[in-house]
């Protein structure tokens, strides 16, 4: 049952690669957005909150289609910025990374925010009274204390990224070896009358990876508590 073809191994490797890159790419932005939403008060905060959480509630296909409208050859960004620069994102693994990053972003921000909100505000106030600027405070006080939130957010986003399908298939297409991640490979097998065994095998791989990631997440959580 576990005889995988060359393209199946590529799909597994590609899923891991895309999810990892998307998570790493989102970390700085996620941290920045979480910081703004936790510590800065400004008008239109609700709007930002809604925008950040939108990919969580929208059907991934909608997210994919909107990305296509934005980045495609005739898209708003595509026509005026990307094409003149010779950058073609649609149907490349970069598009898969972007789709995964956008869909998983709200999860990361939420986790980081949860972590940030547990930081004792007096520590931040103390650093400010001791003369630290806002950037200094972020780097020396908030960042180290947010590590648990950052890790939790990363693991959650990585897991979500492994399962991303709707947005990916619209904006990155199903290209074996280039953008065909595990969910896309399973979808192709499921559409084919003779593909059930292979679909099940890949499903098992998907479940195994998810279990490993979640167990790691739990272990991390416990370790963090011990350190505290």
């Amino acid at each position: 049952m576990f005889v995988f073809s060359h393209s199946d191994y590529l799909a597994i490797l590609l899923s891991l690669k895309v999810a990892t890159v998307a998570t790493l790419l989102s970390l700085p932005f996620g941290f920045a957005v979480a910081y703004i939403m936790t510590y800065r008060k400004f008008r239109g905060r609700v709007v930002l909150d809604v925008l950040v959480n939108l990919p969580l509630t929208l059907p991934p296909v909608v997210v994919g289609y909107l990305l296509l409208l934005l980045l495609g050859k005739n898209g708003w960004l595509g026509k005026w910025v990307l094409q003149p620069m010779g950058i073609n994102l649609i149907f490349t693994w970069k598009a898969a990374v972007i789709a995964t990053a956008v869909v998983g972003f709200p999860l990361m921000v939420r986790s980081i925010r949860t972590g940030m909100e547990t930081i004792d505000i007096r520590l931040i106030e103390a650093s400010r009274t001791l003369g630290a600027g806002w950037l200094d405070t972020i780097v020396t006080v908030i960042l180290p204390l947010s590590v648990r939130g950052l890790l939790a957010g990363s693991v959650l986003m990585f897991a979500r990224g492994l399962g991303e399908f709707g947005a990916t298939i619209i904006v990155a297409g199903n290209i074996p070896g280039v953008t065909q991640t595990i969910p896309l490979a399973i979808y192709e097998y499921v559409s084919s009358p003779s593909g059930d065994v292979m679909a099940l095998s890949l499903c098992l791989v998907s479940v195994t990876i998810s279990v490993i990631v979640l167990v790691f997440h739990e272990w991390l959580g416990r370790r963090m508590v011990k350190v505290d």
Partner: protein
Amino acid sequence: MKLKSIICKLFPVWIILALFTMTATAGDINLSAAASLRDAVTALTTDYSKENPGVKFINNFASSGALAKQIANGAPADIYFSANPKWMDYLKDKKLLDEKRISIFAFNSLVFVGMPDLKVKNMQDVPTLEKVAIGSPSSVPAGQYAMEAITRAGIDKKLENKLVMARDVRECLMYAERGDVSGSFVYKTDALQMAKKVKILFDVPQELYFRVTYPVGITLSGSKKVDVALFYKYLQTTQAKEILTKYGFVIN
């Protein structure tokens, strides 16, 4: 508890509602057809309904492989049009068809489409392109025929990592129309009917692939309906064949 008694009282109502599925009436024909036949078959069913007003068609268009799998898994289908005899044989082996009523419905041919200014004149020019779309060979006949032609032409290794898999032949054409791929392998009929921005760059040489053959067959459930048998007979009349030729299909 109050909530518990409410739930207990509503439970039978839910059960009854769940059982109230829409039952198909006797005059309904569940038709499953390959995506490339969408316009032609819709025209045929419209034409037939004009002279037989009591008959209602429920049409389901997708790739032939996906449809075969649906039927094998119990999806309602009375008559099935495939773009490849392979999927008809698949259902025949599973004893899901009325074996006395399977016939060849039409023929088609494979072409390569792309933007008009593209310098591609034959199969050997195709690997020079960045990305090419074909139907997923595991379930889309157009993709199977295209893959066969690609392999016979010897360009399969060169096209590795460049093939974008579409879920049916119409999606394949759409990718080329949008410009996200440089070109795609579709049926001549799709190019003639639906292509707006792209045009046929060359016909794929027939010796490179098995001739595109559309069989039509009646399923076991369909064989119990009189209307299905009458529609099947209609498909063999000159009137029906004229409609098919109008859409670019070849009859012989």
